[in-house]
């Protein structure tokens, strides 16, 4: 997942002034942070509530509980029977869903602006009144198992990704899949869900983001009315993990029914800690774009178009997360080429980067794309709210967004070369290979294994 996380500050690049509204924020007495992004282009609104609790907060043997609880949040409260949440939102013309990641769990509704009070009433209600029954749990955990089979067990590339993460991280909970290991899903029960809910679903562990055709002052009043009465909770201290240094290359193979082999090379990299002072994460973002930010970027140009050693390639890095990050390269070898050929070609690209750096032209191109992306972003109210919610949930705060944009524009070619040299080295590397198996082979691999939408 590579998302450019910035904010509306494109004034930096072009002289044009966009009709851009400010971001307003206020924290209620119970600790709920409310952030409002006004956008009056269409009479719609999105409500997103972000809980700072993701799969990285799970304990051994309980993987998947964050995501299972996300499903159970639709199963009714003392006042609103199971299924009624979705029915009321649908009847209001709304669209809704939820998603769980390593770092957070979030719920959203998109509606006509007039229906925001309803969405707030329902969302606030399930923040503290959820009904958790053994019956609903038993049914829903089966749905989650089907989700796991569909998204991971029967998807060779997802399986490779899941197993790569389990190898790349020795201690950090990013080693566990968001959806949970199948054996954990089989052993979870409704009590685990109740414990998780009590532990994390509190106003002082959440951020409410409202974006759209609204007035901030009115939203704050509405939020006070619907959420203000929910009591704050004492949050248990979080475990902090420091992933031990990797002391040499790791290699692994995953066999699954498929036609094409696949290669993934993942390097441990830092993430933003002090956005004003840091420079390496920004240089890594630019590096990822130089390699794979557009069709003419290095990997596609060199490996797919010129050398024809790969039929597809990719590079990814995310500078903003609660835990550590990986810089990832991937390639599908061309017909007649092997994963070794692809690995050699990727290593040549890294060597070239370290030896000769990136050109001024490449740097300029990537930065132009970043700035244009800031303008295009204005076309999606939902995405703007997403950025705010993510930044708040990972602890950097939405005010970091414009800082990131400025810092990205300031990255130099030499900095890009330096981070390539510092981090794209074997001691940091996990190499994962998908070894395709014929379909006629033995029946399904019983194997366990990212973001999950309800």
């Amino acid at each position, binding site marked *: 997942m590579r998302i450019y996380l910035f904010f509306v500050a494109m004034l930096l690049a*072009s002289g044009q002034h*966009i009709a851009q509204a400010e971001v307003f924020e206020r924290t209620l007495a119970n600790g709920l942070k409310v952030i409002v992004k006004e956008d009056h282009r269409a*009479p*719609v609104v999105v409500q997103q509530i972000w809980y700072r609790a993701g799969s990285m907060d799970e304990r051994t043997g309980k993987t998947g509980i964050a995501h299972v609880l996300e499903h159970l949040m639709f199963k009714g409260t003392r006042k609103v029977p*199971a*299924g009624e949440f*979705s*029915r009321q939102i*649908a*009847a*209001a*013309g*709304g*669209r*809704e869903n939820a998603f769980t990641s390593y770092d957070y769990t979030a719920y959203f509704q998109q*509606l*006509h602006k*007039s229906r925001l*009070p309803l969405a707030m009433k329902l969302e606030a209600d399930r923040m503290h009144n959820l009904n958790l029954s053994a019956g609903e749990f038993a*049914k829903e*955990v*089966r*749905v*989650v198992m*089907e989700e796991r*089979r*569909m998204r991971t*067990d*029967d998807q060779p590339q997802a399986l490779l990704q899941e197993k790569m993460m389990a190898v790349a991280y020795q201690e950090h909970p990013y080693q566990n899949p968001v959806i949970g290991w199948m054996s954990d899903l089989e052993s979870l029960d409704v009590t685990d869900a109740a414990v998780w809910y009590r532990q994390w679903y509190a106003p002082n562990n959440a951020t409410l983001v409202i974006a759209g055709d609204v007035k901030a*002052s*009115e939203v704050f009043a*509405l939020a*006070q009315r619907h959420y203000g009465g929910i009591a704050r909770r004492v949050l248990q201290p979080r475990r902090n993990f420091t992933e031990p240094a990797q002391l040499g290359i790791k290699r692994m193979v995953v066999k699954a*029914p498929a*036609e094409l082999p696949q290669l993934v090379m993942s390097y441990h990299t830092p993430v933003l800690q002090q956005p004003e002072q840091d420079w390496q994460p920004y240089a890594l973002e630019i590096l990822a774009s130089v390699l794979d*930010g*557009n*069709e003419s970027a290095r990997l596609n*140009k060199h490996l797919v*178009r010129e050398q*024809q050693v790969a*039929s597809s390639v990719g590079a990814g890095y995310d500078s903003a997360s609660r835990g550590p990050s990986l810089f990832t390269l991937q390639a599908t070898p*061309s*017909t007649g080429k092997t994963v070794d050929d692809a690995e050699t070609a990727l290593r040549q690209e890294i060597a070239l980067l370290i030896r000769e750096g990136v050109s001024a032209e490449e740097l*300029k*191109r990537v930065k*132009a*794309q*970043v*700035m*244009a*992306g800031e303008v*295009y972003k*204005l076309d*999606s*109210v939902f995405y703007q709210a997403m950025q705010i919610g993510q930044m708040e949930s990972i602890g950097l705060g939405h005010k970091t967004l414009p800082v990131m944009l400025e810092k990205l524009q300031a990255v130099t070619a030499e900095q890009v070369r330096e981070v390539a040299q510092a981090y794209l080295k074997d001691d940091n590397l996990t190499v994962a290979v998908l070894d*395709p198996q014929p*379909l006629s082979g033995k029946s*399904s691999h*019983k194997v366990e294994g990212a973001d999950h939408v309800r």
Partner: protein
Amino acid sequence: MFVKAELLCVAALCCLTNLALATPHIQNWQSASGAKVLFVENHDIPMLDVAVSVPAGSSFDTTEKSGVAGMTHHLLDKGTAGLSEDDISRGMADIGAQFGGSFDQDRASVSLRTLSSAAERDQALNIMARVLQQPAFPDAILTREKVRLISALKEAETQPESIADKAFQKVVYGAHPYALPVSGEVVSVDKITAQDLRDFYAAHYNANRAVVAIMGDVTRVQAEAIAEQLTAHLPVSDGRIALPAVTMQIPAIEQRVAHPASQSHILIGAPGMSRSDPDYFPLYVGNYILGGGGFVSRLMNEVREKRGLAYSVYSYFMPLKQPGAFQIGLQTKKEQADEALKLVRNTLAEFIAQGPTEKELRAARQNLVGGFALRIDSNRKILDYLSIIGFYDLPLTYLDDFTAHVERVTVAQIRDAFARHIHPQAMVTVIVGAPEAKAESAGGENK
């Protein structure tokens, strides 16, 4: 604080009674080149979206040359007279422009998003104009892209979802070109020549059949010039291209295919409706109730909410020039596939026999009417509507009339329209990763 909140609620109630929305003002004309142009002027964001669509989808392929249409579309931006593929992608990236496209059975389209400031806009449109009107279809690149496509097709042939999709289209459409895989077959793609692409391009990428959708920060005068610039030099062809008619009545066929996956992928369906079907709205609203309405549909309720049998279950109509497929789909672990299949069939049969309840229809209307604003809340979505309205000859008032059409649908109309279009006794069922014993005895053959 509380007073303000009350006021907002009162205001909200007022709004409810008047959800009529300002729909975008669509300007429409024919360019001198003969293309149909739809334009919405909007200066809120300094950017421009443009899409050019032509009837050049995979349904214009033949079985022997399946994949030519897709490859023609794919190679448009891989080199033109005077521009290499790298010049094109670099030229767009330099100015932060996003070049894209879409391709399906009916339609091939090329789309552009760019900043609207003159330098960026002009460069992006210049490249787009050459891609559309002077593609070179270089031999070396065709050879490379054939290899890539063939390996992707081979990969798809191992994945249960793709296997099921392909088998489904084939059984539902038989000899009709909607049966052809959108990107072609391994054998036919291997035979594609650059001359095939040039011939296909000359026959199908014509200005008089093109639809130009323009949305965003330009004036009418500029939009007129853009439409001209993008289509004036398209090849001229007056050949009429007609598709054979879809055979609507098909026999009941169940196809079970063995696969080592843990889940069975189940698809059920038949030819459904065309974009111009007079029953479009009754079928559309009815399908929302049956399996289109997310978490509140009947299928979702029966299969997932009540029994936990699947993560995803849906139904849809694919409205195309000719009747596109009606399809129900789900995935569930092998051991319970037959139970789930039976449940889905019963749910469908009951819906066809009895139709929805008044209460269900009311809820559907509330969602589709109340949520209309979400359909047109971004430039991107409006651009897509412009393309669809132009391509399928829908009235320019399509968006203005949408909610009224939905409001008018009755329970009787839905029951009647479904009864005429969907025959549960004569549908195709494809199960990939079928429960072991049965799959082996069937051996992937029809039965």
